[in-house]
C-alpha cells in the first residue's frame, strides 16, 4: 500500500511535532513555526494539518491534565508515529538525493 502523501505545510508541522517530541501541541507548534519561518500563521491552519495527519496515521495524540491556564481546557499533545517517521525519512531522502544532483556551478 502506498503511503498517503504529505503536503508541504503538513511536512513542516510534522517536523515540528517530531522535534518537540511529546511536548507538541497547537500553540507550541504555531509559535515554533512562526519563529522559524518568520511569518504569521493562523492557528486554524495548524489544526487542520494536525487533523489530517491524525486521520492519515502520521501522528497520534493524547490529552494532558487540566491546569489553571487556558481557562481550564486540556492540552492535546501530539507524537509522531512510526509511519510518520518513515514518510519523513523518505521525503528527506528524496530531497537530499535531488539536492546532490545539482551541478557545482558557481552562482557568483
Amino acid at each position, binding site marked *: 500500500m502506498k503511503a498517503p502523501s504529505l503536503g508541504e505545510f503538513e511536512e513542516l508541522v510534522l517536523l515540528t511535532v517530531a522535534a518537540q517530541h511529546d511536548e507538541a*501541541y*497547537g*500553540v507550541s507548534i*504555531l509559535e515554533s513555526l512562526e519563529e522559524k519561518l518568520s511569518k504569521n500563521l*493562523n*492557528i*486554524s491552519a495548524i*489544526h*487542520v494539518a494536525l*487533523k*489530517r495527519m491524525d486521520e492519515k496515521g502520521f501522528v497520534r495524540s493524547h*490529552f494532558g491534565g487540566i491546569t489553571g*491556564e*487556558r*481557562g481550564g*481546557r*486540556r*492540552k*492535546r499533545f501530539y507524537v509522531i508515529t512510526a509511519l510518520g517517521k518513515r514518510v519523513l525519512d523518505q521525503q528527506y531522502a528524496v530531497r537530499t538525493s535531488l539536492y546532490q544532483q545539482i551541478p557545482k556551478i558557481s552562482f557568483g
Partner: protein
Amino acid sequence: MATHPPKMALNFLHWFCQEEYLEEIEGNMVELFEQQYEESPDKARRTFVWNVLLHFRPAFIRPFKIHYTQNHRAMIRHNFLLTFRNFKRYKTSFLINLIGLSSGLACALLIYLWVQDELSVDKFFDKDDRLFQVMQNMHRDDGMETIEATPGLLAKSLKEELPEVVYSVSVIPPTFNASKGVVSVDDVQIKTSGQYVSEDYFKVFSYKLLYGDKSQVLSGKNSMVISENLALKLFKSAENAVGKIIAWKTQEISGLCLISGIFETLPANATNQFDLLLNYAWFEETNPSDGWGSSSPHTYMLLKEDTRPDQFNAKIRDFIKTKDANSDATLFAQRYSDRYLYGSYENGMPAGGRIAYVKLFSIIAVFILAIACVNFMNLSTAKASRRLKEIGIKKAIGANRNSLIFQHLQESTLMAFLSLALAVLLVTLFLPQFNQITGKQLTLHPDSQLILSVLGITLFTGLMAGSYPAFYLSGFQPVAVLKGKLSTTLSGEGLRKGLVIFQFTLSVMLIVSVLIVYQQIELIQSKNLGYEREHVLYFDTENMSNAFASEIKNIPGVLDVGGGNLTPGKALGGTSGISWEGKVPDDNIFFSTLWLSYGLIETLGMEMAQGSSFSENFGSPNQIIFNEKAMEAMGLTDPIGKNVTIGGEERQIVGIVKNFHFESLYEEVKPCALLLAPIHFAPKVSVKIQTGTEKATIKALQKVYQAHNPDLVFDFKFMDDDYQALYAAEQRVSTLSRYFASIAILISCLGLFGLAAFTAERRLKEIGIRKILGASDFGIVRLLSGDFTKMVILAIAIALPLSYFIAQQWLESFAYRIDLQWWYFAGAGLLALLIAWFTVGLQTVKAARVNPVECLRDE
C-alpha cells in the same frame, strides 16, 4: 486571568464545532487570546473572533442530525398523552379555553362567510374586469348628484365613436317602472320583473343561455328571453317554452312576444334580479329617446382588453357636452362588479358604500379572534406555574429546548383544532339563524379556498396562542426551576396585564358601538315621519276610478282611501318651475312634487299646519299644498288662498302641511309641493285599515281589485314594512353587532374568570395567613379584585375616547342622528366594570371564604 474571550464567538464555536476537537481548538485559541490580551485587549478579541470564523470549515463542523429522529413518533405520542392528562386534570381551564377559542373561531368563520359572499356579488361574469357601467353626474345647486340613468343615445354613440368600447348596451332595469309586468299564457298569470335590453346584451353580460344563440335571441322586436325558473312556472319545462307565444303587459307597454331563448336562473349573488328580457327597441317605440337632455336607460359596455379605466374616464368625461352644448352633465365609467360595494357617490366620485360594513365586520372578526387568542395566551401563561416542575424535570433528564417548544406548540395547536371542530359544529348549528339576520343564503360548503383559509387561521391562532408559553417557558434554567426560585419572576405579570387591558379595551369599544347603533336605529324606527305608516297598505292599479275608490271605501274595516305617487323612502321627482307672486326671478328652488287624490292626506294622517286638506268644497280641482319647508323657502306670508303657477297651470294654495319625511332619513326634509290629481291618475292606492280585522279586509280588497283589474295580480305592501326595509342594512348591523359584542364580552369574561381563578389559587396561602391574622372576607375580596379593577378601568379609559371618535364618524352619515350622550359612554364603562367585577367576584368570594386551616395545612 479575569478576562474572557468574546462570548458570542465562543457560543458560535460551541454550536458548530465537533465535540472531539472542541476542547483542543478552544484551548489553543484561549491561550493565544490570553497571550495577546496583555498587549492589546481589543486586538486579542478581534483575533479571537477571526480565528473562530476561520475554524468554521467542513473539517470541524459537527454533523447536523436532529436528536429525536428515532423516537419522533414516541415523542409526539408522549406529548399527546401529557396534553390529555392536563386537560383531564384542569377541566375548568380546559373548558374555558375551548369555549373561548371555539366561539371566537365560529364568529370569525361566520363573518368570513358573510364577507366572502359580499365580495363575490356580481363577480361571476366571464369578462368581469372589462365590464363597465356608465354613470352620469348631474350638477345641482346643492352639489353633484350621480345617477345610473343615461341618455338613450349614449350606448350607440359610445360604441361608434370610441375604439375602446367593444360592445355597449342600453338597459331599462326592472326597477324603472314602479310596477312589475305581468306575463300570461292561457290562464296562467305571473307578475314578474323584466328589463328591456339592446341586442348585444348577452355579449356584454355572460349570463348562461340554455336555449338560443347569444347574438340572435334579442334580434326580433318582440323576442323575449326568459329565465329557466319562469319557464318552469309557465310551461313546466324549459324546452317546452322555446318558440311559444306569450303576452306581456305593463302600464305602458303590452303585446305578444315570442320566446326565443332561455337563460339560466340568476345566481343569488347577482344584484340585478330579473326573470325576463325584452328588446330595447320596443321600449324605445313608446318612449323615444329625445336627444341628450333626458335620461332613462342604464348604459353598460364591454371594454377592450388593457383599457386603462382612468384614461378612458378622462375621454368620456365631457362626452355629453360634445353632443349637447347646453348640458353640464359629465360621465364616468365604473366597473360593474364594483358598484355593489362602492355604490355611494360624493361629488361625482365613488365614495364607499357597502364596503364600509364589510370592513366593519372584518375588523370585528379580527377583534373577536384577537380577544379569544389573548385569552388562550393568558390562561396558558397563568397555567405555566403548574407545569414548571414538569419542564424542569424534562430539562434535567435531557430534553432540549426545541422539543419543549415543540411540545407546547403541539399542545396549543391541538387545542386550536379541537376548538375548530367545535366551531364548525357551532357554525352549522347557527348558520340558519345567521342567514335570517343577514338576509343571505350562506352555506358552509367546503371549497378549497375556505378549507385552506380556515386551517390557516386555526394554525395561526394555535401557534400564536402557544408561542408565548412555548418560547418563554422553555428558556428557564432547570436548576432554578426545580429549586422553585422562579416563582416570582415567572408570572409574566406585565404581559398578562397588558393583554387583559387590550382585551377589555376591545370589549368596551364594542359595548359602546352596540349602544349607539341601537339608539340610532331606534330613533329612525320610531321617528315621527309626519305621516302614519302603520296599518296603511298600498298597491298599484291600472284603472283607478271613483267607483273603484268608493267600493274600496265601503269594505268594512277600511278607514280611508287615497291615491298618489308616494312611496316611503324613495327619492321623488320634482320641478323648479313653480312661480308665485313676489318670487325673486332667479330664485331656483327645487320642489319635490307629489300627486295626490282627495283622501290621501287623511289616509296617511298628515297634519295640516294651516288651511285645510284638499277638498271638493273648493270647487276647482286646481289645488296645491306646500310643506312648511317650502313655505320658508318661498318666503310667503299668509299663503292660503294665493295662486301659484306650475307647468303653466294656475293652482290655489289651500293649505300648508307640517313637514314630513318622504325620503330616507339620510336626507333632510326638502321643499315639497303636493298637487291634487284626479284619482284615476294615481298609480298607487293607499288604504288605511282597521287593526284586528286585517285578514278579512285584505281578502275583500283583493276581490274588489280583481273585479276592476282582471289582468293584474293583487300585490300589496304595508308601508311600515317598506319603511323598515329602507333601513335593513342598519338593522342588520345593529343585530349582528349586538350578538358579536355579547360574544366578545363573554370571551373576555371567560378569560378574566380563568385568571381570577388562577390568582386566587396562587395566593391561597397568602389568603390563609391574612385570614388568620384577622382579615375579613370582604377585605380579601377587595384585595384580589383590586388588580383586575385597575386593569379594567385603564381599559375603559383607553376605549372611551376611541369609541367616541368612531361613533361620531359613523353618525355623520345620518341627517337625523342622536346626540352622543355622556351616559352612553359612562354606561358602557360601568357595564364593563360590573361584568368584570361579577366574573372576578365569583372566584374571589369563593377564595375568601376558604377555611385558612385547609389551605395552610398541607406542605
